[in-house]
């Protein structure tokens, strides 16, 4: 879809986290898109994409679950909009693998008992804002620029890696998050850990791993002078926000870095109120920071 089109419409795959621990990501996505007049239709009765556990031990199951979701999405007009970086990665990986392997394609068709639909485009929200809507139109919608807010953009693993799969931006030096948030008036900081892994789903099985890896990320963001961190993934958010207090006590330090979803910060800049962005659901309270910048 070119940026010339006046109406943008997508099918929406929220993913499991957005219906529970990342409810504020879902809420702020819907409100932001409404405000920007971008159509979003949730795919009825979507299934879990299988996430990491499925491809970890059963690739065929993982591919089949994603192919099934792509089939459900195909019934709705428009490209597929995905909020969660992990779901986004699984859906894109499935399209990539099945386009390359005839053997796997036949197995998956048999498993879902339907012909494959691989031509639909799967897009992360960042891509929709930066490319489909376009930074100029995004900037034009801003009525409360995030002036003076220093944001550390955290990509984590799956928005960019591996090569040739997400194809959203450069794998090792992406700038899409920075471009989006600068377009709405914020400042960004250069920092070391924006592409490092937070430990993701080890939060359930081996939280010690997450505490160590996530501490390095928080430490790097703080050292770079960031006021807050921006993410596009509910797993990264869970580790950086929910576990932040625990990490502070383990490492005997204070970070106090609010962790925003990209839709919350962009939503703030287009004038959406705290109630429409789910700011009260954040564990690290963002209100003092936003007040000090005149944004609350």
């Amino acid at each position, binding site marked *: 879809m070119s940026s010339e089109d006046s109406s943008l419409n997508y099918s929406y795959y929220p993913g499991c986290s957005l219906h529970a621990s990342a409810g504020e990501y879902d809420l702020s996505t819907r409100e932001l898109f409404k405000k920007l007049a971008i159509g979003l239709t949730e795919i009825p009765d979507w299934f879990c994409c299988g996430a990491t556990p499925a491809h970890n031990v059963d690739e065929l199951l993982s591919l089949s679950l994603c192919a099934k979701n792509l089939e459900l999405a195909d019934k709705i007009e428009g490209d597929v909009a995905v909020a969660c970086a992990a779901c986004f990665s699984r859906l894109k990986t499935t399209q990539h693998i099945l386009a390359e392997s005839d053997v796997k394609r036949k197995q998956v068709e048999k498993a879902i008992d339907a012909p494959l639909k691989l031509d639909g485009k799967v897009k992360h929200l960042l891509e929709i804002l930066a490319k489909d809507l376009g930074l100029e139109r995004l900037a034009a919608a801003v009525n409360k620029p995030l002036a003076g807010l220093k944001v550390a953009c955290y990509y984590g693993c799956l928005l960019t890696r*591996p090569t040739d799969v997400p194809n959203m931006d450069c794998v090792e030096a992406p700038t899409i998050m920075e471009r989006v948030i600068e377009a709405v008036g914020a400042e960004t900081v250069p920092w070391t850990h924006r592409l490092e892994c937070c430990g993701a789903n080890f939060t359930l099985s081996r939280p010690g791993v997450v505490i160590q890896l996530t501490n390095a990320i928080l430490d790097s963001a703080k050292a770079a002078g960031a006021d807050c961190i921006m993410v596009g993934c509910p797993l990264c958010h869970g580790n950086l926000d929910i576990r932040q207090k625990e990490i502070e006590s383990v490492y005997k330090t204070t970070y106090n870095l609010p962790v925003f979803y990209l839709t919350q910060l962009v939503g703030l800049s287009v004038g959406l109120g705290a109630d429409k962005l789910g700011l009260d659901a954040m564990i690290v309270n963002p209100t003092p920071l936003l007040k000090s910048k005149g944004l609350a």
Partner: protein
Amino acid sequence: MDTRVKKKKMIISQETMDVDFVRKVEALSGTSVRSCFQCGKCSAGCPMATFMEHPPNRVVRLLQLGQWQRILAGRSIWYCASCETCSTRCPNKVYLASIMDALRKLSWDAEGASKESYVQLANKLFLQNIRTYGRQYEMRLAAVFNVKSGQFLKDLMLGPKLLAKGKLKMFHSKNKNLSEIEKIFTRIEEMRKKGEAL
């Protein structure tokens, strides 16, 4: 499988090389194990290498030398976070993250050869939830994990905080098309029984 294999002296000969196993890994992962020339970039960038007994490059080397039992008996493959850094940086396009997936599947099929039980338990519960409910329900997943792993107090302090923030849902609805997910699981099981899929 005998996990004591980890401590056994390594003997490499014509007999110990297991090309069949390597071929199976290559078929599952869609990538070449044999292309690796041990530059070590994967291990240099691996965020999880510090938790592994064999760093990623050594996993590939052991595989090339037919020492797959050592890998399956260890915990390295279960400590891979699937961050894809290795696959991204490999100069020979060895998709190591996919090799890790294949090795975990083969270990899984051998019914938990590794002692890294927590990660395997979490995976198992996650997949069971999909089969039963169609989607993932985090609260149920965490609660059942704690009970089954015997860590009743794990993250207990987080619970009330998350509930107050609306981050844990006590109740959830089921998908209307739930029977379709069961069919997918069953068809895959049947294909495997008939030898049509690995």
